[in-house]
């Protein structure tokens, strides 16, 4: 042993020195050393593109698309004052022009917020219900769990085609009954803003409730079963058990799930493009994609504003959930 140590101590060179230096780091220092590459990677693939997007948003493309000039924050000013609406697809706008239903549904910002709030709310409620059922012991529970995840595994394009075909005027079966109930326009359904927005929200809820259910189920299964035994002995009803044990203990999990889903929902694009079109159901990401080929500055400004809105929404959710959130 002593011979080996002696041999090693006689070695020298940069590699050996680096190894020795590393061996002598404290645990915290060592942790940051290992996290270093992750920070570098995030800097390259996240921070740098974000800064470049901001830089791009300070330039405007000339009307004939031949040149680009520095305009400072003019793209942002025009975005919020309506000057950029002429470059957005169809009759869509960034902010609503007035408070009528059609103006609100033509606004990319309003549609994105409506989509995020409605879809995440329904997905959370349905996901919680599904998770509570899956948490019970019943025959075939494993199969039901597998079945419930199927919508989540369907690729967005396939999901989009399914809903497109369901409401397609040639082969679709879903429009007439829902039109009779007054929920959808009977003709030209997928080109009607209100109808298409409704269909896209339903499609998203169908797909993503399973994701919420699985996250919440993980929270449910981490609850100590002994607590329920104590509650039963103390004579607590099922509702009291849910209200006093289950719900408080899974609330942090629900918070994280809502956070993830909200970020995802604010970036909605794929399902809109496959079921309808960005000119009919405008979302912020839709506006970025629609303008990027010809108006990079406008697209970058919308992308940066979208990132800022998501950032604010995330911080709001984290603040609301308190320290348990992450």
């Amino acid at each position, binding site marked *: 042993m002593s011979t080996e140590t002696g041999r090693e101590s006689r070695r020298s060179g940069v590699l050996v020195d680096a*190894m020795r230096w*590393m061996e002598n780091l404290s645990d915290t220092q060592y942790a940051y050393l290992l996290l270093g590459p992750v920070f570098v990677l995030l800097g390259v693939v996240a921070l740098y593109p974000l800064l470049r997007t901001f830089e791009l948003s300070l330039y405007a493309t000339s009307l004939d698309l031949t040149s680009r000039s520095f305009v400072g924050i003019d793209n942002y000013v025009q975005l919020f004052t309506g000057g950029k609406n002429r470059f957005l697809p169809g009759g869509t706008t960034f902010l609503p022009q007035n408070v009528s239903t059609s103006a609100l549904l033509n606004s990319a910002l309003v549609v994105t917020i409506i989509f995020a709030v409605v879809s995440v709310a329904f997905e959370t409620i349905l996901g919680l219900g599904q998770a509570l059922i899956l948490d019970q012991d019943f025959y075939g529970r494993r199969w039901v769990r597998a079945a419930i995840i199927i919508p989540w595994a369907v690729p967005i394009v396939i999901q989009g085609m399914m809903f497109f075909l369901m409401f397609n005027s040639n082969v679709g079966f879903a429009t007439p009954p829902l039109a009779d109930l007054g929920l959808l326009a009977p*003709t030209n359904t997928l080109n009607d803003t209100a109808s298409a927005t409704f269909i896209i929200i339903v499609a998203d809820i169908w797909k993503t409730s399973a994701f919420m259910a699985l996250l919440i189920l993980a929270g449910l299964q981490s609850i100590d079963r002994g607590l329920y035994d104590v509650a039963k002995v103390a004579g607590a009803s099922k509702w009291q058990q849910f209200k006093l044990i289950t719900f408080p203990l899974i609330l942090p999990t629900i918070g994280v799930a809502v956070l993830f889903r909200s970020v995802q929902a604010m970036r909605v694009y794929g399902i809109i493009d496959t079921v309808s079109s960005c000119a009919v159901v405008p979302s912020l990401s839709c506006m970025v994609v629609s303008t990027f080929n010809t108006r990079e500055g406008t697209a970058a400004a919308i992308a940066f504003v979208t990132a800022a809105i998501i950032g604010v929404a995330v911080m709001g959710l984290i603040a609301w959930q308190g320290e348990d959130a992450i």
Partner: protein
Amino acid sequence: MAQDDTHDARSSGVSRRRFVQAAGVSGLTAGLAGCADLLGGSRSGPGRTVTWGFDPVAVQNNGDAIKQALYDNGLSEDITIEFVPRDQDTGAARSNYNRLLNAGETDPDMFLMDNGWTNIFIQRGQLQNLSEALPEELISDINDNYFSAFTDTTRDPSSGDLFGVPVFPDFPTMQYRKDLVEEAGYNPDSENWATEPMTWEEWSNIAEDVNDNSDTDYGFTTQWDIYEGTACCTFNEVMSSWGGAYFGGRENLFGPIGDRPVTVNEPETISALNMMRKFVHDENAEDQFSSYGGGFTPTNILGWIEEASRAPFAEGNSVFHRNWPYSLALTGRNPDETEDPALGENLGAMPMPYAVSESNANQPGTGGTTSALGGWHMTVNPNIENQEDVTAVIRAAMEPDFQLELLSIQGWLPPRPELFNSSDAQNVDVVGRYMDTLQVAGNNTMARPVTAVWSDQSTNIAQQANRAVNQEVSSADAMATLQSDLEDTESQ
């Protein structure tokens, strides 16, 4: 004790030294593998190879035959042609080429570009100026012998210089069930339906009559979704056949942006939309259409693009159908020789009907039978290093025999009017039967007004045309909104 626990935990896991060594070796290996691709994995230099961004369906079905046709028409065997299939979606192809040319890529050397967006690449200076790069005899050949309206979509509107060479134009026709109209007592052959355009009024009465007296569900199927095809083509055709235009007539199609009038909020354009409402809803707007047939077109057209609208027609469920020549090639096949629905010799074609003649059109250069202008051009990457070889490929691709070969194997129409009259063209299976009609269509085209702002305008146009025909708003209100939208996009 605590110290012992820590020691045990560490010694049972991977040591720091071993972890960093393993991570270092893995990283180094991955890095070397990546660099190896950059250093030795890239395509060898241009050499005598010409790469051409091409139609993916054509490459898959007829790639080798098209290459052979180029060699048969004078291309040296020393030059290897390599087709690079593009995205099938024209919009996605445009985005890809835009990124690629923005980045100064040298590959591919040539592109096949939609006449709908070639102009945008010209405006941005992303293409080689062929008036300067190609020999004079090729430029004169294009100027003298090609469809002029189609060729104009590949010129710089300010200088008139050519930035592309037309490969194939597309002219839609009105296709119909010849058997049904004959059963209903009409005689397309003796009445020269194939070459003499009829008015919308006469046509609509025939459509309603034949539809009422046959077992078809629809009298007419076309495309009226919110998409490029409505703005560039179906609405543009109907509007033009009423003497209307987006920007004050033919001379302003390609600009100047901001200095041309916007003319959609005009009686002729509103009448064109009201006529479509008559066809779909049998609505007699402003008592203008009492002598027209109506109610024979399904509201489905509001969500239909080409293939969705062709399906019921090919299945024998519609009397009339508006579509491009590919539809003639597919629908006109012998039903006994294909598993797809087809009509064979029962398929007829006529030029698009019209409402006012050229001389009575309000906007200059419009009126009469009008076919929207589609089609594709070959263009050249400005960063190429093999100009001579690229010129040789273009020269071979401009040979009339090569263009006839494309018509034969791919159904792509020759860009030279005189080829339509050649016996070879008339003899091509299926499409050859409709050459007379396509000739009339080719001589009466209306290009889409592609400028740098067209992509901002086309969705607005399609949306308002769609909403008007869906009766969400009156045609007049839709055109008033569109007038204001278009004026916004034209303002500096």
